[in-house]
């Protein structure tokens, strides 16, 4: 490896612009004649629209127009869709209710968009939005996922009786029931996975530009996947055909999943630009973000885990209700099914697993993937259950896990997944050593002397990244393929541009993708540019989510580099009158192995384009592209250990140490990986201790600002101890697995296991607020 190559701690190239305020985000974009949009939103959780009167609003200063859902419908703009078909166990397809980009008849959550106001300034648009009179007939609302399925509850969509979207199962119910009946011990638990608001630093924004001269649309948007946005807006929402729609996702300040989806605002702003004849920009404010960004998690589950007399798990039975909110968001159906139930084997050899998942509608904002997407829910359920079982069986939690670890690979679980590689005990041992597990008793005794309750907990997680392969996900209901594409353009003087369909919104692709090129070609990293986020510049792409950019996006780049290298060698061999099989690429030159013959990279590149002296029949130029379709998921795994001190008088939890020992496969840039782990851990700690979306019974969002929604701050998290012990992934050319979500997946159960250990009471739900911990720690329990 070179100084800039694979494995080097290269400082992030993009950080100069981010740290000096030179980033260019959607809201920074400005075009001549641009106007500003504000959305009129429903203040009610459930109501019928009986009339919209925008007469007064249209007459207000600066107002260009006010447009509503009836006009949108008349112009043929389609419904928002969920792109992954799930069938119930009775064979019926999921019950998808209509989601209009602007509600024309019924609103179903507070924040549902009803009309758009376009004006000369944001303030004028806001003034006019307040003057739009919307008449509502109120309907009863339901927000509690346990209540919504009952007879007599409010019905959200006529397509979905009792608000049931699907009742799906995975695994062998009969085998599980037999094992439960024969078990030496059964651990039972009820698990709540709290609802989270994603809170990227940059709120969503979009700028829709219609060019009447070319009948062409441009959409700037805060997207994690601009090509997917273009596909969905053209193929399903009927905004414009793909060849007349350019989607640009420039710098994007965090997504965490919430910017995967195509929201009403992008569609409506593009449509409004055509209707009004002016470019239309909308920027979300923070309250609007709480109200309308797709939320995450929100599961209620019961679990039964059966053990034999030797403490080996014989079966797992899970029943889950997943709240999808008022409408089915783009990938909402796959999160609590194929990204959740398929991970329920964890790191353990479990012969029989059965999961039943019911997804339901409530009068709340739609729920979709949020950092981890299904795997945090599976991990929390499994690792809370393992810890509980260890306590019930009187075993050390580490020993119970060791007893049940999968130890040979590949390993076929009973829930679809085929694990390709891993060494779970190595991570467990590394974490226990780093945490000085054996010294805990002494630390606990010392803390007791200070009146503090000290606890320790662990979590052994596995997750699946690089959602794949396309044919497999297609057979499971995915509406898209999950490949990635890359194009490598060698410029005439040898510098490199890489066009990737992956999208960086905090991940550091401009550095890591360049490191791969630097490693392969021996070129300085400054001579390599990574281009992403623009459908006019990048050939095709599926975007970034599910920690897929390394495993899938960089694999596509590696394939394209194979082609570039092959052609470069042909050209260089011809120039040096050598055999191309003897040419090697190193240190920025093409050399004939074992001789002093050498052609600098830039000279070869120039030769490719001057085309004065190319091998007979070879095309001029040096630009190659590749699509990569993964052979399997990748399976990052690891062990997290958390140690806490609880102040029994106040219930305040202090995390005194947090150890993460991960297996991410090969690592491109350790510094960036550590940053991803740190961020993920902070988000997991946020879920476990602080964050929780709350609606009241009428469907009003109670946690709509940072006064009421607690985000983790620097002093809520400790200084993390992170390490990796890696087994390369055998299924992609780079051996990488993915690291973007592990921290958020593995940390909540470790933290709750530590708190419940400290207070000696296992009854605790997330977020473990001081009051909950205080109440649970009372001696009465």
């Amino acid at each position, binding site marked *: 490896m070179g100084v800039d190559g694979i494995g080097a701690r290269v400082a992030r190239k993009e950080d100069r612009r981010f740290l000096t305020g030179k980033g260019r985000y959607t809201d920074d974009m400005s075009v001549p004649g641009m106007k500003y949009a504000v959305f009129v939103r429903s203040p009610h959780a459930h109501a019928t629209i009986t009339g919209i009167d925008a007469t007064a609003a249209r007459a207000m200063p600066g107002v260009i127009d006010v447009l509503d859902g009836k006009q949108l419908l008349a112009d043929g703009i389609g419904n928002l869709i969920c792109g992954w078909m799930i069938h119930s166990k009775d064979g019926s397809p999921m019950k998808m209710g209509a989601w209009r980009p602007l509600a024309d008849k019924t609103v179903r959550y507070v924040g549902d968009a009803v009309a758009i106001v376009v004006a000369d300034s944001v*303030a004028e648009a*806001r*003034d006019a939005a*307040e003057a739009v009179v919307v008449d509502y007939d109120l309907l009863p609302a339901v927000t509690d996922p346990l209540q919504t399925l009952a007879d007599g509850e409010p019905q959200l969509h006529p397509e979905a009786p009792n608000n049931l979207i699907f009742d799906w199962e995975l695994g062998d119910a009969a085998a599980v029931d037999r094992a439960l009946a024969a078990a030496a011990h059964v651990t039972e638990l009820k698990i709540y996975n709290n609802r989270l608001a994603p809170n990227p630093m940059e709120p969503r924004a979009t700028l829709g530009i219609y060019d009447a001269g070319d009948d062409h649309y441009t959409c700037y948007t805060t997207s994690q996947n601009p090509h997917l946005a273009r596909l969905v807006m053209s193929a399903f929402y009927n905004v414009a055909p793909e060849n007349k729609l350019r989607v640009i996702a420039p710098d994007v300040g965090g997504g965490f999943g919430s910017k995967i989806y195509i929201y009403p605002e992008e569609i409506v702003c593009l449509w409004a630009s055509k209707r009004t004849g002016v470019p239309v920009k909308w920027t979300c404010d923070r*309250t609007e973000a709480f109200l309308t960004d797709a939320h995450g998690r929100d599961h209620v589950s019961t679990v039964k885990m059966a053990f034999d007399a030797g403490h080996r798990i014989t079966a797992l039975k899970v029943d889950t209700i997943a709240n999808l909110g008022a409408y089915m968001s783009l990938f909402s159906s796959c999160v609590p099914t194929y990204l959740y139930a398929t991970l329920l084997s964890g790191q353990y050899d479990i012969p029989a697993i059965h999961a039943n998942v019911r997804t339901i509608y409530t009068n709340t904002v739609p729920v979709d993937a949020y950092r981890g997407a299904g795997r945090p829910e599976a991990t929390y359920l499994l690792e809370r259950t393992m810890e509980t079982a260890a306590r019930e069986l009187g075993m050390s939690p580490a020993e119970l896990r060791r007893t049940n670890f999968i130890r040979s690979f590949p390993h076929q679980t009973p829930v679809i997944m085929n694990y390709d590689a891993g060494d779970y005990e190595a991570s467990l041992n590394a974490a226990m050593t780093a945490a000085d597990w054996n010294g805990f008793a002494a630390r606990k005794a010392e803390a007791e002397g200070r009146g503090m309750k000290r606890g320790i907990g662990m979590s052994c997680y596995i997750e699946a990244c690089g959602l794949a392969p396309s044919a497999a996900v297609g057979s499971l209901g995915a509406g898209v393929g999950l490949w990635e594409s890359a194009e490598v353009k060698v410029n005439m003087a040898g510098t490199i541009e890489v066009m990737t369909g992956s999208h960086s919104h905090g991940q550091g692709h401009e550095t890591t993708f360049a490191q791969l090129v630097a490693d392969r070609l021996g070129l300085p990293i400054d001579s390599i540019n990574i281009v992403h986020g623009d459908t006019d510049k990048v050939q095709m792409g599926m975007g970034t989510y599910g920690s897929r950019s390394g495993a899938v996006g960089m694999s596509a780049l590696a394939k394209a580099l194979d082609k570039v290298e092959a052609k470069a060698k042909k050209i260089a061999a011809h120039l040096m009158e050598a055999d191309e099989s003897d040419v090697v690429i190193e240190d920025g030159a093409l050399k004939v192995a074992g001789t002093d013959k050498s052609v600098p990279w830039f000279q070869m590149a120039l030769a490719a384009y001057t085309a004065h002296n190319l091998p007979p029949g070879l095309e001029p130029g040096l630009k190659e592209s590749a699509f990569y379709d993964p052979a399997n998921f990748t399976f990052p795994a690891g062990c997290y250990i958390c140690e806490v001190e609880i102040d029994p*008088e*106040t*219930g*305040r939890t202090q995390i005194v140490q947090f150890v993460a020992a991960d297996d991410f496969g090969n690592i491109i840039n350790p510094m960036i990986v550590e940053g991803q782990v740190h961020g993920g851990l902070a988000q997991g700690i946020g879920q476990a*201790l*602080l964050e929780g979306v*709350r609606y009241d019974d009428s469907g009003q969002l*109670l*946690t709509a600002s*940072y*006064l*009421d*929604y*607690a*985000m983790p701050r620097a002093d*809520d998290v400790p200084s993390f101890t992170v390490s990796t012990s890696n087994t390369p992934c055998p299924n992609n050319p780079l051996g990488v697995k993915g690291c973007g979500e592990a921290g958020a997946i593995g940390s909540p159960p470790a933290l709750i296991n530590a708190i419940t250990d400290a207070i000696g009471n296992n009854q605790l739900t997330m977020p473990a*607020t*001081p*009051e909950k911990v*205080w*109440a649970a720690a009372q001696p009465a329990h």
Partner: protein
Amino acid sequence: MYETNYHRASSIQEAVQMMGAAAEGKYVSGGMTLIPTMRLRLAAPSDLVDLRHITELKGIAVDGRSVRIGAAATHEEVATSAELGAVCPAVCDLAGHIGDPAVRHMGTIGGSIANNDPAADYPAAMLAVDAVIVTDRREIKAGDFFTDLFETALEEGEIITAVRFDAPAKAAYQKFANPASRYAMTGVFVARRNDGEVRVAVTGAGSNGVFRHQGLEAALSANWSPDAVANVAVDASDLLTDLHASAAYRANLVKVMTKRAVAAA
């Protein structure tokens, strides 16, 4: 934010004139509550009259144990005042834990007291040290000043110019912060005078805003010790239950914070 007119007053007299000329004016000091409220369109004053640059409202003066803090003193100025720290470090400590550094450099003691947020820190200190709130018209005892949630004894157009108090012999403030807002979920300021009288003022917990707790005061006046708190009953029925904490939990926090404040004093 709705359109508003901004005026910077350079004297109290000018401020009063500006307010008199405004249709629906509002005084602004640090603006740490008012400006966000306006940005959310929950307040719409026609005019803002800025008091922060009036010389008469500035400064912190300590004479023996007599303290005068100008209404426009920022939290940062209070937190870092060496003169105040020498006689009443508890108030400096309180000011140093309000909000974040940006808030502390903008927010003022006068603004905080006039707003009387039920979870604000300063009202507890004012009650516990038996402060006098000085206005452009009169002097008001702290005990008479804080009347209800976001309500004070201030009349229309009345301006706080300073607060005055005698530094107690011992004092401390302990705050249990709301994890989201970092306002006080429960904050307790204890102050003990030279004659042994103890005041215990509680913020963040009361249904009607800041209050003194007679039971705790009696127990601590009789026995100035953290242990004295143990047997005092704190009635949860007068306390606040909200999204973040129940009255019962707040009742517990009142005792714990009081105990810790006495230990820290």
